[in-house]
């Protein structure tokens, strides 16, 4: 027997109203929309029980419910509508509608509400659900309007994602004939015949390469999905198994593919490239950190860098602060919501999995997507059946994903950005990051040290394992195409994670119950267990013990599945009982799946059969070293003539509507940025609520110390010069932090490279140049890298609407994130101007560096960074801030000085007058538009109390700086040009309207 409980809201149903509005704005003639929640309960209950269940799933004041049953689950027909149990449903349910549309999950997709519902029902009835019994949720929408069945299906496709959800439409006639919608139980049925396949590697080279590219051959001729193993890797594997005198099993091959994937081993950054024998990572990134630490000597604040799930620096004498940023690009292209939510909760686990377990204290995001108004379809397949999601849809989806993941986890999100570029259309870049806090010493031991010991039990906690995320690691090492597996899509479950996160970092950690812990991320168990096994030298796993979402999952899938919300721990036998008891009390599933050994082998058993037995050394070090050759041809770009606009006021107002400059307050507002009680300066500054490029958070309420975060990236510069692009990204992340109160001598960086076509020498040449800049500028600022990540193939191979093959490569993108610790948060400076009469100063010289800017994306003169003069200036700004000399500060970036003046004005809601002629600048730089819109780095616009003028000017006397205007007590905003004439004349209101125009309907 199964039941379908429908719940209708009859007062204040704002969700239905908002849905109607949204559908109307999508162009559908909808008169009314009514949204109902549906719970499908697949378990026997008597009528009294099911009524009680419906009562706890609805609210007696605002909702009514209806119960229908179905006794024959093989047929779609419903048996009975339980009128006697329905609580006045019929009086309030929509009677007038044209179509009913139901959206539910496909089999095997994580259904979080169903999990909660099941638990509530078990609690109420004191009856446990057994294997074949289940709960499923769906959404039923009644639509009335001038729409056809086709329209309704289109609406379904807008509201649902076909990769994870089912859509079911009925018109009113069939709805009434069938007594409503069907009762559907989306369960996964896997063949119970489980077979361990041996893979013959004595095949032709062509076949071998096909195996690497498309995966293991199934009996039916289909392939299992990409192994992403290149030719030399395949031969190394072949050679190994020749020595072992046997063929590999499917799980062995899959496991090697995961471990050796670009995603896990960062093979491109590790490879020898031209003259850099150590590769880009060791030769530039890691080397920068080593050299800086040596130079800093006793002032070195790094504690754990590049070796753990996050990097850690000193916070104060008792605590460490950690940072990590990740990308979730490919999954977000297919399912933006699922991709982003798994991204954010996944990077949270990189914090929980740091050392003995750090507490996440703030989240960060960065969304790089196609232009929001670009609706030109592109397709993954030649038959034009699989359309890519539009940039707007991806944007909205990833926003919602981070919303759900961050908000539900109780982690503030004070920091983030959105950036739009036409070439992010095929593959968006979705950055997520988490800062964590951990006591330096726990139970008398340094908290950042951990190690699995021989004899420790391998224990997994959290969510169950399913087919989700099969081939995620190898998939992300590939470009996006029609073959991209839908099982690569996962949905996060923040509450399951919150339960174990609390149990670990707030209890088990202090009770000293484990020796090591790590996150199950890319590659799943194959990665976490075998990585941890390196610490002791081996492992033996019994895959039959792994708790599954549904029966009959093949062992190779269990081993590499990327099901979310799981972590792996190493637990000494004598502490096991206590650990499991604690997890049971917290309702966290925990399971022993094997033992860590020192055998030098990674051994896996399934049903008493040994199905994997590979040497640890081969598994981790067997992959052949790559040697890469790079070329870098600088494209000669002719400086295009650019006529000076006649009306610069209009130009400025238009620029403020540029999506890369415009307000994205709608995102900041829907992310909780004040939870945990340590907010200092968040995403929005001033009465005018302007997005700040930096944030300050107190991770502990009772200290004055603050974590200062910022981010920088300039994808538009990449096609001109990636060295300068990287320099600008670093400078921006550093100076934004300085502007808000960051401390240069206690500042660390992270690099997130998102490249494209990284098998092409030219792209590698661009990469090499960027990596070199990473070394040069980090060393110059003495800001070490503590963690980083790369994603090398952000390309889309598909078809345009005419079926013509197209490739869209994301622009080479480097996101640099900075993390600084400031001693006293009361010194922090916001960007909004404060009082009429305050003086406006510019610090730093302005140059003719208009190219690649938001104003003029063409040209060749992109900004270059002089780190030596910049560092001197930053130290002075820091001093001025500590001496309370600066009332407001913002450093120009995208949109140059003009955007900076405007943003400060909008934020402060006070007028401003500026004289461009006073701006210190390169000789010959006279064009007003050049001065206004050039994105020259290393500058600040600050306002000061006029009483501080002398003190301020004295401090900066050796720097390039000038007083250029003042704050008005009117609402006027005027800029005088180099010729002394007023070139911009507007007011606070018009600026604010332009700044808030582009995303006002989001």
């Amino acid at each position, binding site marked *: 027997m199964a039941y379908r409980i429908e719940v209708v*809201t009859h007062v*204040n149903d*704002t*969700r239905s*109203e*908002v*849905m109607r509005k949204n559908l109307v704005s999508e162009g559908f003639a909808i008169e009314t929309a009514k949204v109902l929640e549906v719970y499908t309960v697949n378990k026997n209950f008597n009528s009294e029980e099911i009524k009680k269940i419906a009562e*706890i*799933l609805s*609210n*007696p*004041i*605002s909702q009514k419910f209806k119960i229908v049953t179905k006794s024959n689950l093989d047929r779609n027909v419903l048996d009975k509508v339980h009128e006697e149990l329905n609580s006045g449903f019929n009086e309030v349910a929509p009677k007038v509608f044209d179509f009913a549309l139901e959206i539910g999950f496909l089999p095997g997709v994580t259904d*979080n509400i169903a999990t*909660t*519902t099941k638990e*509530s029902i078990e*609690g*109420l009835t004191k009856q446990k659900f057994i294997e074949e019994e289940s709960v499923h949720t769906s959404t039923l929408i009644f639509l009335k309007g001038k729409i056809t069945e086709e329209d309704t299906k289109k609406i379904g496709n807008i509201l649902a994602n076909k990769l994870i959800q089912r859509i079911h439409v009925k018109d009113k006639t069939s709805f009434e004939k069938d007594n409503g919608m069907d009762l559907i139980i989306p369960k996964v049925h896997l063949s119970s015949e489980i077979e361990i396949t041996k893979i013959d590697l004595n095949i032709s080279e062509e076949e071998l390469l096909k195996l690497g590219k498309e995966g293991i051959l199934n009996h039916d001729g289909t392939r299992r999905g990409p192994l992403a193993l290149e030719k030399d890797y395949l031969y190394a594997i072949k050679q190994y198994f020749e020595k072992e005198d046997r063929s590999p099993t499917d799980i062995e091959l899959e496991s090697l593919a995961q471990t050796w994937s670009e995603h896990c081993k960062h093979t491109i950054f590790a490879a020898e490239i031209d003259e850099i024998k150590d590769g880009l990572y060791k030769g530039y990134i890691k080397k920068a950190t080593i050299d800086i630490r040596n130079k800093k000597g006793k002032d070195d604040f790094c504690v754990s860098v590049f070796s753990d799930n996050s990097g850690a620096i000193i916070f104060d004498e008792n*605590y460490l602060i950690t940072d990590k940023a990740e990308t979730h690009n490919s999954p977000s292209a297919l399912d933006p919501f699922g991709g982003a939510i798994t991204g954010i909760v996944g990077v949270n686990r990189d914090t929980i999995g740091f050392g003995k377990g750090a507490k996440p204290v703030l989240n960060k995001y960065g969304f790089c997507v196609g232009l929001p108004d670009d609706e030109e379809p592109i397709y993954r397949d030649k038959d034009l059946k699989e359309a890519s999601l539009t940039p707007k849809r991806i944007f909205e989806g990833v926003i919602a994903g981070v919303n759900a993941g961050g*908000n*539900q*986890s*109780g982690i503030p999100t004070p920091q983030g950005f959105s950036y739009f570029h036409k070439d992010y259309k095929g593959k968006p870049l979705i950055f997520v990051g988490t800062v964590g806090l951990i*006591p330096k010493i726990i139970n008398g031991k340094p908290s950042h040290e951990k190690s699995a010991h021989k004899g420790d039990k391998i224990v997994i906690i959290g969510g169950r394992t399913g087919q989700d995320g099969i081939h995620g690691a190898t998939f992300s090492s590939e470009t996006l195409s029609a073959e991209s597996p839908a099982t690569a899509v996962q949905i996060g479950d*923040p*509450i399951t994670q*919150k*339960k174990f996160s*609390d149990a670990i970092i*707030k209890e088990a950690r*202090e*009770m000293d119950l484990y020796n090591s812990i790590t996150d199950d991320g890319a590659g799943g168990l194959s990665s976490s267990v075998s990585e941890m096994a390196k610490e002791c030298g081996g492992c033996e796993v019994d895959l039959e013990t792994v708790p599954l979402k549904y029966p009959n999952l093949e062992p190779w899938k269990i081993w590499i599945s990327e099901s979310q919300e799981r972590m792996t721990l190493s637990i000494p036998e004598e502490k096991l009982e206590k650990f499991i008891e604690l997890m049971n*009390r*917290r*309702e966290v599933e925990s399971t022993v799946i094997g033992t860590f050994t020192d055998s030098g082998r990674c051994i896996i058993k399934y049903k008493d059969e040994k199905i994997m037995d590979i040497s640890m050394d081969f598994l981790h070090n067997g992959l052949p070293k790559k040697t890469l050759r790079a070329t870098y041809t600088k494209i000669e770009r002719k400086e295009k003539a650019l006529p000076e606009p006649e009306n610069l006021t209009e130009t400025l107002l238009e620029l403020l509507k540029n999506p890369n400059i415009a307000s994205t307050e709608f995102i900041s*507002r*829907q*992310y909780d*940025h*004040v*939870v*945990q*009680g*340590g*907010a*200092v*300066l968040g995403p929005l*500054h*001033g009465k005018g609520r302007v997005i700040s490029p930096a944030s300050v958070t*107190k991770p*502990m*309420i*009772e200290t004055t110390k603050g974590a200062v975060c910022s981010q920088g990236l300039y994808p538009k510069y990449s096609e001109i010069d990636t060295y300068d692009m990287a320099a600008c990204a670093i400078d921006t992340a550093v100076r934004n932090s300085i502007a808000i109160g960051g401390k240069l001598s206690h500042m660390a960086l992270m690099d997130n490279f998102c490249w494209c076509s990284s098998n092409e020498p030219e792209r590698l040449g661009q990469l090499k140049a960027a990596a070199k800049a990473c070394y040069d500028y980090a060393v110059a600022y003495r800001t070490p890298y503590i963690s980083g990540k790369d994603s090398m193939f952000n390309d889309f191979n598909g078809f345009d609407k005419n079926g013509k093959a197209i490739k869209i490569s994301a622009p080479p993108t480097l996101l640099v994130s900075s993390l600084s610790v400031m001693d006293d948060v*009361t010194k*922090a400076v*916001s960007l909004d101007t404060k009082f009429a009469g305050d003086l406006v100063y510019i610090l730093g010289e302005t140059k003719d560096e208009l190219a690649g800017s938001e104003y003029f994306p063409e040209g060749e003169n992109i900004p270059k960074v002089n780190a030596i003069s910049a560092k001197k200036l930053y130290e002075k700004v820091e001093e001025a801030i500590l001496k*309370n000399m600066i*009332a407001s500060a913002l450093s120009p970036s995208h949109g140059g000085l003009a955007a900076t003046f405007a943003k400060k004005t909008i934020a402060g809601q006070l007028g401003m007058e500026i004289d461009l002629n006073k701006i210190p600048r390169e000789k010959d730089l006279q064009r007003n538009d050049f001065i206004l819109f050039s994105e020259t780095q290393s500058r600040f616009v600050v306002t000061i*109390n006029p009483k501080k003028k002398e003190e301020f000017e004295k401090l900066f006397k050796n720097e390039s700086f000038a007083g250029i205007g003042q704050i008005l007590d009117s609402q006027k905003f005027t800029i005088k040009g180099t010729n002394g004439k007023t070139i911009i004349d507007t007011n606070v209101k018009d600026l604010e309207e332009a700044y808030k125009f582009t995303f006002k309907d989001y």
Partner: protein
Amino acid sequence: MSNNDITLGKDRFRRDIPQTTSLSRTSQGSVALPKVLVLTGYGINCEEETAKAFELSGGLPTIVHINDLIENPKMLDDYQIMVFPGGFSYGDDTGSGNALANKIKNNIEKEILDFAKQDRLIIGICNGFQILTNLGLVPAKENKYGKRQAVLMHNAHARYECRWIKLKNTSQKCVWTRNIDTLHCPIAHGEGNFYAEKEVIDSLIKNDQIAFKYIKDDNSPANQEFPFNPNGTMLDIAGICDETGRIFGLMPHPERFNSFTNEDGWTLEKEHLLREGKELPTLGKGLQVFKNAIEYFTK
């Protein structure tokens, strides 16, 4: 280790509480610090800052996992104040606060109702307010503790909203809002749209149970106008108490205004004070809510 250890120490989840039932209020004045039980588990996530707010206000908070409370409900006897902090219990699945309220009802409803009926204090903040409402601890018209009489529904714009708002204390009765006229405070919720049937609303007004209302910057009523009233709630209701004034549910988060530097716009206030040669305050005004609870037992 710092003072922050109330949240990290080994006794964070207490299991074996000595059973004492003494309330300190009526006896020796301010000798014993009131003990505060701060609930956690299943997605509650504001327990640490809420415990900290009570600590800064002179209370003795202990964070207790709901499963430990279910196992040993007698521990309630040891506490004068019970707190349902903010968070996302069960991810708001089946309605905000509903699933955790169901868990309580399925296990320790009687003990919670007993606590509510005694001369003790209960506060539910944000998701905690939603839980209190689902448990029927507020508004509890005619002292019908345990009956759902109101509901917090989806915000008018049907989206999660995080921003600072302004509140007006409109109740003489509510213990928790004493000594407050207006308060700047952050909200962060998707379901804060208070609704009850007319007779319940009438009785809320009649019995002086509407403790906080959203107002505009100039202290005039928000009159449902966004963003001053951030969720469309009827009568601009942000928080209500029971008929005794001891049990308080509110959507805003006063615990997030624990420091001067938390407040939206504090840097402008800082410049003001610096230019007037004045000291900067350290604590935040939101703490008054928690001080009121402590003083109920100590003054």
